[in-house]
């Protein structure tokens, strides 16, 4: 190889985001100066995005073991768990925050494309998507156009490829100004024996490239995702990747058809760091080596050099390891789908990744240097100073003289609570005809045609809480997700997560990260829901600082029988409303404080995991027994909002009234009782004859429960302490259903 001392200057090294120590390490692995291509390869593989260098150590805290786990977190592209009868599911969440900030439509679209590939590389057929989203202030035109771009990008890709988007989150807070979060979740189903692996094994087997031709898209995307956004990022625009959902649909069908035969040994998608990542990771997993010739790679553009080819992030490409003599069979399947597979190299046992351009070697790197031996850093977490000040809030700072009925309406119409149908109606959430509980209820439920079981899924994460107390916030993210799952009639199974944080080299961010992981881990242990995989997205910062720490939990649960499915809405007719869980008036960190009083402060609600588990177990039991008709968890907006939400059946476009009484607690404040977000609470409905029995059963199990009123009346009536609130039903409906839409239409 030529000498490269001249090209590899300190500036070039720095531009690649490689520190001096890291460069020393590279020299150690190679025993020589790297070529530019090699430097590029190291820089993407050692980027935060691929190497998890600032999070690996902390992520080890997550519980990852469990009885049904078939593929553990970190082993493959996505985790896999057993659901019985020979069936398994695979699911994962990914972030596409930075690409979406720059180019919302394509950024979000390619995010969907990427997570879908992660799932079908496991041999699973993707059957559901969710999209947890965070944006800045929704009143800003800029944010609105971001939101519209992101939502239409997700719609474009998900609808076209024919996988329903059945749930998600949409939350607005100044903390995400300029740095929106676009997380995407995908779930797939497979037979145990069809499980595919991303390992390059078998000396002499073919390394096969299939899918879109390679262009200069997204070069340096992976390192880009690991850097803070500044104003100059606008200049990085050539890095934009454009998605082609049609091509991915063909790729998906062809790959599943192929994987169900026996010619493919390993498969991996070319996501971040494209060809580089897929080749060295498959070789690393297989304990093998790999040699490829990039002159054989299909190109979309002319004149691309080795560096660009290896680092391109063109979408809709897959790498496969195919048994030596099976190329013909592979080709025949791909050709049926108008796709073309090319052999670009071979598996060997050298432990080295060799990249040639024709006969010239352009890179030669020990595989493990890029994967297992990548740098890992131990941060020095340090509690941020803002926390104590922000947590400190006295009741007298919260004005009392408000019209409570008016506040209920304002909160219902607040974009963070109002119905998100403007979003989900743009998504085909019914294709595949499995969606049994449509978006809008606590958790989405899909049936599995292959078995009699159903799957519930929910995504949750509360940046407000985590900002004020990352440890409690981490616990609550998991607990709330589990609560949503239980409300739909499911038993929580497992978790995937996406950790969205600021710059991890800052000690307070490192602290927030660590505390969140600790809290989440504890909660996962409590609910026996291991973490099966996920994603870390650091460097979510804007000129004002880091975003609120936002761990997103994607939880999946199993419903044994269709009869167990519950929605959050009170049924037709009349009956009793039951509150399970504690009364409470923890107002700190509540949405009420933020949206009505402009205070993002106070101590967020405490999570007592034992209480939570008791409530959830009881509710699931009572649902399965058939004693209750609906279940809705209490979260943002507190009891008053949860009650109002239970009244509105979005999909039938109907509303029912209630007459309920809520006791005032220690603080003596009516507003706290109505809008406080004390955890571990679920609202149930039951026919009158059953209600007392439910309370009795709860008492026997040591779970708090009380009848708080009736549903099925003509208006929305709440008594709290000495105050009475009465709201006409059309007002409730108007506020909840139409505000978001009207707000977004105003600027069209």
């Amino acid at each position, binding site marked *: 190889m030529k000498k490269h001392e001249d090209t590899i200057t300190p500036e070039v090294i720095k531009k690649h985001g490689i520190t001096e120590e890291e460069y020393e390490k590279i020299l150690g692995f190679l025993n020589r100066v790297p070529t530019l291509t090699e430097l590029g390869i190291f820089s993407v593989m050692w980027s935060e995005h691929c190497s998890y260098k600032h999070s690996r150590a902390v992520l080890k805290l997550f519980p990852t073991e469990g009885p049904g786990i078939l593929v553990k977190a970190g082993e493959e592209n996505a985790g896999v768990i057993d659901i019985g009868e020979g069936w398994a599911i695979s699911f994962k969440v990914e972030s596409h925050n930075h690409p979406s900030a720059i180019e919302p439509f394509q950024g979000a679209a390619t995010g969907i494309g990427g997570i879908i590939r992660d799932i079908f590389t496991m041999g699973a057929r993707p059957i559901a998507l969710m999209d947890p989203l965070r944006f800045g202030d929704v009143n800003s035109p800029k944010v609105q156009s971001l939101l519209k771009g992101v939502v*239409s990008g997700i*719609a474009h890709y998900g*609808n*076209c*490829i*024919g996988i329903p988007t059945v749930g998600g989150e949409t939350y607005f807070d100044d903390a995400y100004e300029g740095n929106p979060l676009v997380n995407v979740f995908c779930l797939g189903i497979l037979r145990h024996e069809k499980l595919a692996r991303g390992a390059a094994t078998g000396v002499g087997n073919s390394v096969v490239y299939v899918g879109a031709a390679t262009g200069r898209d997204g070069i340096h995307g992976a390192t880009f995702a690991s850097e803070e956004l500044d104003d100059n990022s606008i200049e990085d625009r050539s890095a934009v990747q454009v998605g*082609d*959902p*049609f*091509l991915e*649909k*063909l790729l998906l069908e062809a790959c599943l058809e192929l994987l169900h035969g026996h010619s493919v040994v390993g498969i991996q998608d070319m996501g971040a760091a494209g060809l580089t990542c897929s080749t060295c990771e498959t070789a690393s997993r297989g304990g093998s080596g790999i040699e490829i010739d990039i002159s054989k790679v299909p190109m979309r553009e002319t004149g691309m050099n080795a560096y660009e080819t290896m680092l391109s992030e063109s979408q809709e490409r897959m790498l496969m390891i195919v048994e030596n003599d099976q190329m013909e069979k592979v080709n025949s399947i791909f050709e049926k*789908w*108008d796709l073309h597979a090319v052999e670009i190299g071979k598996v060997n046992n050298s432990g080295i990744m060799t990249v040639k351009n024709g006969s010239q070697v352009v890179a030669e790197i020990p595989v493990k240097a890029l994967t297992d031996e990548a740098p890992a850093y131990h941060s020095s977490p340090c509690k941020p100073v803002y926390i104590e000040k922000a947590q400190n809030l006295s009741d007298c700072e919260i004005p009392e003289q408000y019209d409570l009925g008016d506040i209920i309406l304002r909160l219902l119409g607040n974009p963070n609570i109002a119905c998100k*149908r403007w979003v*989900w*109606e*743009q*998504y*085909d*959430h*019914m*294709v*595949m*005809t499995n969606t*049994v509980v*449509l978006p809008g209820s606590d958790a989405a439920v899909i*049936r599995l*045609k292959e078995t009699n079981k159903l799957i519930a899924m929910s995504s949750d994460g509360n940046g407000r809480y985590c900002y004020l107390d990352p440890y409690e916030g981490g616990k609550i993210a998991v607990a709330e997700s589990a609560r949503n799952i239980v409300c739909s009639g499911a038993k929580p199974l497992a978790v995937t997560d996406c950790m969205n944080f600021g710059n991890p080299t800052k000690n307070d961010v490192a602290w927030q990260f660590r505390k969140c992981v600790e809290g989440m881990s504890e909660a996962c242990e409590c609910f026996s829901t291991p973490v099966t995989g996920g994603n870390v997205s650091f460097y979510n910062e804007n000129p004002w600082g880091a975003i609120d720490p936002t761990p997103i939990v994607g939880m999946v649960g199993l419903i044994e029988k*269709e009869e167990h499915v519950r929605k959050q809405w009170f049924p037709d007719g009349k009956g009793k409303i039951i509150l399970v869980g504690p009364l409470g008036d923890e107002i700190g960190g509540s949405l009420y404080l933020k949206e009505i009083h402009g205070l993002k402060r106070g101590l967020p609600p405490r999570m007592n995991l034992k209480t939570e588990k008791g409530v959830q177990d009881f509710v699931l039991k009572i649902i399965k027994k058939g004693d209750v008709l609906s279940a809705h968890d209490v979260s943002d907006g507190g009891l008053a909002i949860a009650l109002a939400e239970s009244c509105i059946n979005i*999909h039938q*476009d109907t509303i029912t009234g209630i007459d309920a009484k809520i006791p005032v607690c220690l603080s003596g404040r009516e507003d706290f009782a109505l809008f406080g977000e004390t955890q571990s609470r679920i609202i149930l409905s039951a026919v009158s004859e059953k209600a007392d029995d439910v309370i009795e059963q709860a008492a026997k199990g040591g779970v708090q429960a009380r009848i708080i009123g009736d549903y099925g009346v003509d208006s929305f009536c709440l008594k709290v302490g000495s105050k009475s609130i009465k709201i006409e039903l059309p007002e409730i409906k108007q506020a909840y259903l139409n505000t978001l839409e009207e707000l977004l239409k105003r600027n069209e």
Partner: protein
Amino acid sequence: MKYGVIVFPGSNCDHDCFWVTGNVIKQDVKFIWHKEKNVNDVDCIILPGGFSYGDYLRTGAIARFSPVMESVIKHAEKGKLVLGICNGFQILTECGLLPGTLMRNRDLRFICKDVYLSVENNSTRFTNCAQEGQILSIPIAHGEGNYYANAQELTKLKENNQIIFRYCDREGKINSYSNPNGSLENIAGIVNKNGNVLGMMPHPERCCENMMSSMDGIVIFDSIINSLN
């Protein structure tokens, strides 16, 4: 009877149609790959929803050149049944089996939700099990379902009673509020002059089971079976 569900590259409701015809109403059904040329053995061809060829250029524009389409046209000319749902409807207008065009939705957004349809003509082979004026709840899911026909075509559609479904509200009112996508005169589905080719934007295959939000889609599949007996 036997159904045939055509699979174009990019079709994505093909499996849903297969499931309903095969597993729910329990008829014979097979997939027909778009490169096949022989469709002789089926009684009713379904062109399913989805994004054939990614909907690039125009919806249905490229799919209509698929090899199978020649036989589909022959099948229709013989008076046998063709049902085009959503993207299938778009393909049927592109290939000339049905008049008009499906343009982008009035609000330029994709819309997926349950809508109400009024059955405007129940004496067809696709609607004979429905009551005239019956209101069906069936979901839509499309970005380009805004039906357009020129004045002449519209007059003909009316003269021949070819308008089968119109969008309406729960009470059956047909007006711009109950029009989800801007379709001309709320048109949601039409047949050809001979009454053997139906194109509709709503998805009856999505609402044939108890677990789904409605079971009204069944009426169409039942009518088809009924018309063959």
